[in-house]
């Protein structure tokens, strides 16, 4: 697996939690929002978004609810208090990680 793919894979949960931190969204919306906020940089295979969402729900980081919108039923995902807690922890770790990594790169590159 390419380095960038590993980075993306490792940050999928963080990205989803960031996307859902302020409002509930359905899968397609999450996918579009990720692309919009990253200027297209985070463009994952959309089918693979759902296993992650379902796993996060099973882990208690998200809850979901089906809603009828027009003539379509959509499953909305919402961040839970545990998800918010996890988001804060991950964001803090990510900042520490990038700070130290950039420091090392600054010394040698």
């Amino acid at each position: 697996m390419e380095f960038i793919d590993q980075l993306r894979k490792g940050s999928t949960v963080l990205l989803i939690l960031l996307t859902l931190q302020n409002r509930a969204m359905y899968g397609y919306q999450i996918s579009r929002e990720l692309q919009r906020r990253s200027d297209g940089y985070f463009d994952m295979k959309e089918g693979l978004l759902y296993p992650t969402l379902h796993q996060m729900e099973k882990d208690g980081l998200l809850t979901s609810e089906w809603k009828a919108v027009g003539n379509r039923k959509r499953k909305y995902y919402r961040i839970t208090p545990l998800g918010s807690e996890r988001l804060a922890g991950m964001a803090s770790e990510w900042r520490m990680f990038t700070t130290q990594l950039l420091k090392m790169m600054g010394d040698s590159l």
Partner: protein
Amino acid sequence: MSSLEIDTYLAQIESHLQELEPDSRAELLLELRTHIEDSMTELPGQDVIARMGPPTKVGRALAKANRAHPNRRKRWIIAPVATFVIIVSLVPILAQGNKPQHCVSSLIAANTNTFQAQSTACFDNFADAISYATGGAVSLPQSASPDEVSAALRQYYATRNPR
């Protein structure tokens, strides 16, 4: 993109979801179908199926993420059939040249106290039974001692459940 292509794609994914309850499976497929329809509406002309990803990969990942509650997961147990309780009934079989066997049963938890056997496979020796039960991940010589078996199984489960 035709509805036949969508149906085919979803059917390929569904083939990996047979472990799930029918309601969960239907709900999951509806979620994917809605996503595909949304994509087709907003991104006409794009290969929506390609954006979703290979059905086998998506199906397997969904099956893993949606695997039933732990007490409904398949449990593999090793059950040596020859015990003192049934040794009497085995004597005639042994006399005909059959060996006592080691059997592996795939169990599904019906509730918190009851398991139902789904399938059983029997082997001449314990090492082959262990190998079968772990999908070949634990391979032991036929002369392995109980301590060696325990150590190998501990390592196997530690690898499967690193947390």
